[in-house]
């Protein structure tokens, strides 16, 4: 079918706002999340964690714990093998420390017992002998010669010789002649930026229920963004066959990228295998902060040259990211995204990853991009201030568009940045007056988006209803969007469709819910699966009518003869065809499997008004508007929700959220009291403007919307604060003590 790519059409259901199918369950408390499941004979597990930021594990004596009444299993790294694959080894080592504890909170042992109280008591009986080692938690410190080495011998081949062993990865992107570009500038600004590690801050702590039987079969109930990927990792770590491990994704209480990686699930499975009973393992909030999640921290130098009329002549960024105690390449994305919004003749970004004694980084909405773009958008803003130019108009002047050679290499196809900037420029927010101590910040944002492995199965029930089976946990209303697209394509009411998220034994492999891929890729597969079912239904109608299959087409939920020559038959609806499916050849279902590409990049522009209290350094967000290209908003309410949620996470990142480490290398604020995510009274309404510039790679023009929204707020907020107080803020978060200090330094 030549309908793979976008075709302009008038939508009947896509773009409406029906109730989500899981709504009633979620407002009545019936929805089952990770910690809500139980199993007969279930044990409760607890994890013993390192109190040291860096220590060699000399010995672990579990005898006393094992002897405690009620304790059924104790595991340590000795209960796991040593995977050959470096990635898998890192994943496992993060779940259970092998030779060294690499950060405060690193798991060193775990216990399963008949009660949680017994499991807790057993932890105290495990004797771990540590040889405490020097530690380093700051990226810049970790890069210095002579810094404590987190792990030796982990550098990739791209790291030049002679650097600290903590440096594991290097990348460089860009094009053009930087020197010539800077020479053309009327003014050049170079700034150093620093950002703290932050956490996704999902409200549901990681939780799972594992059950392994003596014949090697296993079940895992878990809150995850990707049950299939969890199966892959757990099966590999435990030496199980994928077919024997069925992973069921519970309802998920937030993820934002943080639940794309296993943390304790292999441990729960190992405990269950050892104990021969189901094991439930639920992390405490303290454990969530100390041992799951966080983003990279960064240290960055950004240099940009501009002519006096606002044309950017050259841009350069050096990014030093640290994603904790393991190698990672998130800086690749930051380095590619940094200047993506601009059409530049000369641009270069350099990225470094450096290990520190902190937990292993996990993805967080557009991983890597918010930081580098914060640096770039701050310097662009400062140049606008220098020349007295309008920050939105300068961005429009330099904006990447179709045909621009992007800062990361490829030439852009149709993109929505200029339209988004123009929408912001025309919006009343941009021209609203500001008061004393108030500032307005502007920032562009960018994210790649991607598609990935996707299977959808769609079954036509004999009563004329339709079931859609997909494999991606619904993290923000995707079941509603998928149902809408199926309804649109089939031409039946939304209410006739029920979409469910399958376990790993019920459907082929689906990539994790990440990369803003679900509405794009699962949507695409759903449309294709519907078309597969439609083809079959047309075939049944053709048989009933006794005409050629090709002479039947699908219009408004019914098979109809294609044109006058096909014969005169009244339309046969989906329900009518379904009712006789047994008689006409058996059940009717549609399928589609794809590794989807063509997700299409996404741009956003944010406007942020802030008032700063000059006596305390407190910042208050007064007004906030998000402009983002959604390609096509399938369920606009949930598109707005993604934009609003991303914006507020970014505001939190900019203003107050941070991992605070003490001199002892311990995380000082592993709780919601002192890891300060925004509360409702901190915020105004978050206005949204959805632009719809169709993505040529999707039948309905859909682009992913989940991640881009967190990219602009860091700089939008920082630019607003900087303009409000006349001091350029180059460190995140801009917590009041830092801001007040900057204000006093200014005098």
């Amino acid at each position: 079918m030549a309908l793979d790519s976008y075709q302009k059409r008038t939508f009947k259901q896509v773009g409406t706002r029906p109730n989500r199918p899981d709504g009633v369950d979620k407002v009545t408390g019936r929805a089952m999340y990770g910690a809500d499941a139980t199993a007969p004979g279930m044990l409760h597990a607890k994890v013993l964690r390192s109190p040291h930021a860096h220590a060699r594990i000399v010995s672990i004596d579990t005898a006393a714990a094992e002897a405690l009444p009620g304790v059924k299993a104790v595991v340590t790294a000795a209960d796991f093998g040593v995977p050959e694959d470096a990635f898998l080894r890192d994943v496992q080592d993060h779940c259970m420390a092998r030779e060294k504890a690499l950060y405060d909170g690193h798991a060193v042992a775990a216990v399963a017992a008949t009660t949680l109280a017994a499991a807790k008591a057993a932890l105290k009986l495990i004797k771990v002998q540590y040889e405490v080692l020097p530690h380093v938690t700051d990226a810049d410190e970790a890069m210095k010669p002579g810094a404590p080495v987190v792990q030796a011998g982990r550098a990739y081949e791209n790291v030049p010789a002679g650097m600290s062993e903590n440096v594991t990865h290097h990348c460089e992107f860009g094009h053009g002649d930087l020197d010539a570009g800077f020479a053309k500038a009327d003014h050049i600004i170079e700034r150093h930026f620093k950002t703290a590690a932050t956490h996704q801050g999902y409200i549901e702590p990681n939780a799972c229920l594992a059950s392994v039987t003596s014949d090697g079969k296993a079940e895992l109930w878990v809150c995850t963004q990707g049950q299939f990927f969890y199966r892959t990792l757990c099966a590999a770590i435990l030496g199980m066959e994928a077919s024997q491990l069925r992973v069921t994704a519970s309802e998920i209480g937030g993820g934002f990228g943080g639940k794309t990686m296993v943390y304790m699930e292999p441990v729960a499975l190992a405990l269950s295998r050892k104990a021969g009973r189901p094991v439930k393992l639920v992390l405490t909030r303290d454990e969530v902060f100390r041992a799951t999640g966080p983003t990279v921290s960064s240290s960055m130098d950004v240099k940009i040259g501009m002519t006096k009329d606002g044309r950017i002549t050259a841009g350069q960024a050096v990014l030093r990211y640290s994603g904790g105690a393991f190698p990672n390449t998130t800086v690749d994305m930051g380095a590619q995204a940094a200047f993506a919004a601009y059409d530049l003749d000369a641009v270069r970004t350099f990225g470094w990853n450096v290990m520190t004694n902190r937990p292993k980084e996990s993805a967080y909405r557009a991983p890597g991009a918010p930081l580098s773009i914060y640096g770039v958008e701050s310097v662009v803003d400062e140049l606008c201030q220098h020349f007295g130019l309008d920050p939105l108009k300068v961005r429009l002047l330099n904006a990447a568009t179709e045909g621009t050679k992007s800062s990361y290499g490829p030439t852009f196809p149709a993109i929505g940045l200029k339209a988004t900037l123009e929408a912001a420029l025309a919006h009343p927010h941009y021209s609203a007056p500001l008061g004393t101590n108030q500032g307005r910040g502007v920032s562009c944002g960018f994210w790649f988006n991607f598609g990935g492995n996707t299977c959808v199965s769609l079954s036509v029930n004999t009563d004329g209803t339709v079931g859609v089976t997909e494999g991606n946990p619904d993290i923000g209303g995707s079941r509603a969007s998928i149902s809408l697209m199926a309804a649109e394509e089939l031409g039946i009411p939304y209410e006739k469709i029920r979409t469910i998220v399958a376990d790993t034994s019920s459907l082929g492999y689906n990539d994790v819910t990440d990369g803003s891929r679900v509405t794009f890729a699962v949507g695409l597969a759903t449309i294709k699966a519907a078309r597969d079912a439609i083809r079959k239904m047309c075939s049944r109608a053709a048989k009933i009518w006794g005409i050629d299959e090709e002479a039947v087409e699908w219009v408004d939920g019914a098979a109809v003869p294609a044109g006058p020559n096909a014969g005169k038959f009244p339309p046969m609806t989906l329900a009518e065809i379904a009712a006789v499916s047994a008689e006409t050849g058996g059940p009717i279902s549609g399928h589609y499997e794809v590794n989807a590409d063509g997700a299409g990049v996404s741009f956003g522009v944010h406007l942020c008004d802030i008032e700063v209290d000059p006596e305390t350094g407190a910042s208050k967000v007064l007004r906030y508007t998000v402009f983002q290209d959604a390609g096509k908003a399938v369920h606009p309410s949930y598109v707005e929700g993604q934009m609003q949620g991303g914006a507020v996470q970014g505001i939190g990142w900019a203003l107050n959220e941070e991992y605070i480490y003490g001199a002892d290398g311990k995380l000082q604020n592993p709780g919601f009291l002192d890891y300060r995510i925004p509360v409702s009274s901190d915020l105004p309404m978050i206005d949204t403007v959805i632009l719809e510039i169709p993505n040529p790679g999707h039948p309905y023009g859909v682009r992913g919307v989940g991640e881009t929204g967190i990219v602009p707020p860091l700089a939008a907020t920082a630019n607003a604060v900087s303009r409000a107080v006349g001091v350029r803020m180059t460190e995140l978060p801009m917590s009041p003590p830092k801001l007040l200090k900057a204000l006093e330094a200014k005098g």
Partner: protein
Amino acid sequence: MQYVAAKTADEAVALLAGHSGMARVLAGGTDLLVQLKSGMVEPDLVVDIKRIPGMKDITPEAGGFRIGAAVSGAELGEHAGVCALWPGVVEGFNLIGSTQVQGRATMAGNLCNASPAGDAVPSLVAADAIARIHGPNGSRDCPIGDIPAGPGRTTLAKGEIVTSIFLPARPARASDAYLRFIPRTEMDIAVASAGVSLVLAADGAVASARVALGAVAPTVLLAEEAARVIVGTKLDDDTLARMAAACSAICKPITDKRGTIEFRTKTAGVMAKRAARIAYDRAGAKT
């Protein structure tokens, strides 16, 4: 761990005094349960005082009010009489935690938890409130400021419990206010705070004042010089600046995850002068 809901103050005192291990009093529980959860304390005995008659009462007394030790923030905030007489005490107490925490938290608990940053305490000190303490040797009254001994420590003897807090009567043109600095708008622990209680003279000048600062020393500080600065004035900008400076001058804070020494020192003064202004306006509005 043993849980006992004491039926009388004597029973509670006897249990606590006679217990050899670690014992804790449970009023609102909003600190105790957090400490239990984290394993910070592992008491053998928890004595719930909420079922003791009178503990949840707010009683007029000598022109002021006696607040039972188990009165929650939500309950106090709904009491029109206390809100009118001591608005600063109520607003300090009501700033603790969320609406949910307000459903449980008590002033006496906030006092006895002895955090230097407790939001209920500065206003109580500024109000010259008196705690009534019941112990093995009977009852005694004690100024609020004498109860905290340092972070997490009180001057209460073994077996002693606070049973009520007395807020005294006020002259006609008097009021109080409390402000704290937190990075967010809610849900944080005070980084620096100030409670100010004022009485106005007939001419509208401050006749007497008490200023107390929180989170800038191991215990709440009574800022006597700052109070002297504002007495006799109508809180013009210059006076307020001097008052703020006098507050900052006595701060002895620490640098920790919530704030630096410099930040706390500066902000305590800012909070104090702003609270003074609010208290002054409130007092002036009374005729």
